[in-house]
C-alpha cells in the first residue's frame, strides 16, 4: 500500500535521509525506531507530503506523493496522521475539531459529520468531552481526540509521529490502548515510537533508522531476537535496560 523507494532528502547541504526504501502492505503495522535525529519523523512526514523530498519515489496506493501533478490535499485526506504535540485546533471545541475536515474536505453534511465524530469519540472513550475545548483536556485525552479526528476521515492508513513522546508517563497507556485496538482491527499503520512494548505486542515489522538511513528492516521476532546490525543491538540494549 505504501511504497518508499530510494528516498533522499536534504536540508540545504545537510542530508537528512539517504536512499531509504521500504514497503508497508495493507493491514501491516510497521514500527519505526531509532535515536533522535535519525530521520524517522522526517521519513514518515514524507509519506503524506508534509515534508518534500528531492530524490526517490513514494507511492500510496499507486499514487505518487512527490509528483507535482498529484492532488496532495486529496491524497492526504485519505491518510490519517497523529502528531507528537497533538495539534488539536485550540480555538475549536472537540466536536468542531472532529467535524471540520469531514465537512470541508469530504463534503459531508453537518449531521453526518457529527454522528461520525461522536461515534469515534465514544470509541476512544471520550464521549462526555464533546463540547470541551482542547485546553481543558489532559494530554492523553487530547491525543485520543487527535486519533479520533484522523479516523473520522475513514483513512486507508494511519501515520503516527511519536504519539506518546509528549505525554506524562501515566497517560501513555490510554493512548497505546487505542492504537493497539486499531492495529488489531487491521488498520495499516506506520508508527514512529520508542515504545518497544507496543512494538512487541502489535508490530509486524520493525524498521531501525540511524543517521538518515534504514539500517534494519526486519520482522518483529527477528528484530527483538537477533538484530543484525550492531547499532540496532546497541540501541535496543540502551532502551530496554530499564
Amino acid at each position, binding site marked *: 500500500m505504501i511504497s518508499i523507494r530510494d528516498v533522499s532528502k536534504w536540508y540545504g547541504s545537510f542530508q537528512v535521509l539517504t536512499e531509504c526504501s521500504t514497503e508497508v502492505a495493507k493491514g501491516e503495522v510497521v514500527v519505526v525506531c531509532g535515536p533522535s535525529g535519525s530521520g524517522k519523523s522526517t521519513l514518515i*512526514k514524507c509519506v*503524506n507530503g*508534509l515534508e518534500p523530498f528531492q530524490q526517490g519515489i513514494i507511492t500510496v496506493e499507486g499514487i505518487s506523493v512527490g509528483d507535482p501533478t498529484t492532488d*496532495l*490535499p*486529496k491524497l*492526504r*485526506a*485519505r*491518510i*490519517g*496522521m497523529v*502528531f507528537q*504535540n497533538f*495539534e*488539536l*485546533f*485550540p*480555538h475549536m471545541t472537540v466536536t468542531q475539531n472532529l467535524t*471540520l*475536515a469531514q465537512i*470541508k*474536505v*469530504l463534503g459531508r453534511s453537518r449531521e453526518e459529520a457529527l454522528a461520525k465524530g461522536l461515534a469515534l469519540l465514544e470509541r476512544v472513550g471520550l464521549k462526555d468531552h464533546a463540547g470541551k475545548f482542547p*485546553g481543558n483536556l489532559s494530554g492523553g485525552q487530547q491525543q485520543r481526540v487527535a486519533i479520533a*479526528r*484522523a479516523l473520522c*476521515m475513514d483513512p486507508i492508513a494511519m501515520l503516527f509521529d511519536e504519539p506518546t513522546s509528549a505525554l506524562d508517563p501515566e497517560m501513555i497507556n490510554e493512548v497505546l490502548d487505542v492504537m493497539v485496538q486499531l492495529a488489531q482491527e487491521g488498520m495499516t499503520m506506520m508508527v514512529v515510537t520508542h515504545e518497544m512494548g507496543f512494538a512487541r505486542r502489535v508490530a509486524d515489522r520493525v524498521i531501525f533508522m540511524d543517521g538518515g538511513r534504514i539500517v534494519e528492516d526486519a520482522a518483529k521476532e527477528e528484530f527483538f531476537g537477533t538484530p543484525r546490525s550492531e547499532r540496532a543491538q546497541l540501541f535496543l540494549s540502551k532502551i530496554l535496560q530499564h
Partner: protein
Amino acid sequence: MFSGFDFEVIWRSLPYLFREGMSFTVTLTLLAMSGGVVFGTLLAMMRLAHFRPLSLVAASYVNLMRSVPLVLVIFWFYFLVPWIGGWAIGASQPIHVGAFWSSVITFTMFEAAYYCEIMRAGIQSIARGQVAAGNALGLNYWQTMAHIVLPQAFRNMLPVLLTQTVILFQDTSLVYVISVTDFLGAAAKIANRDGRLVEMYLFAALVYFVVSFAASRFVRRLQASVAVIR
C-alpha cells in the same frame, strides 16, 4: 481665570459637532479599519508566500506606505484616485470621487500596511504544527488559513489591532488637508466662526482623549481575557 471664556459655545454647537463631525470620524475609522484589516491580512499572506515576486511586491508596498507621512499620502491619493479610477474603467476623463470616498480609500490603503505587519506577526505566532495538522487532514492552503491559522492569529493579535485602530481614530483628523469636516474640522469651523479658539480646541482635545483612553482601557481588559482563553 476663565472669566473671558465662553464655554456656552460648546453646548450650543454639540449637535453639529457630533452629528456632522464625530459621525464622519467614526464612520471613516470603522470603514478604514474593516478595509485595512482585510487588505492588510491579504498583504501579510502575500509577504509570507513562498513565491518570491508576490512577497516582494507586498513588502515594497508596506515599506513605501510606512515611510511616507500620512498627510502626503492623503494629498496624493486625493489627486491620484480619480485618475487611477478612470484608467481602471477605461474612461478618458478622471472619474469623480468625493472627498469622503477618497479619504476612505486612502486610510484603508495606508492602515493596511500597519495591519499587515500586525497580522504577519500573528500568522507567524501560530505553530507550524497547526498548519501541518490542517494539511494532513486534507485542507488546502485557503481552508487552512481561513479555519485554522487566521482565527487564531486574529485572536492573538486583537489587542494590538485595536490599539492600531485607536491610532487610526486620531489620525483621521488629518483629513482637514482635503477640506473634509471631521470632528476636529467641525470644532475648528465653530472656533473660527465664533472666535472661540481656546474653548473649542480644548473641548476637541478632551473628546479625543476620553475616547482613546476609554478604548485603550477596554483593550487592556480584553488582553487579560484573551490570555485566559489561550
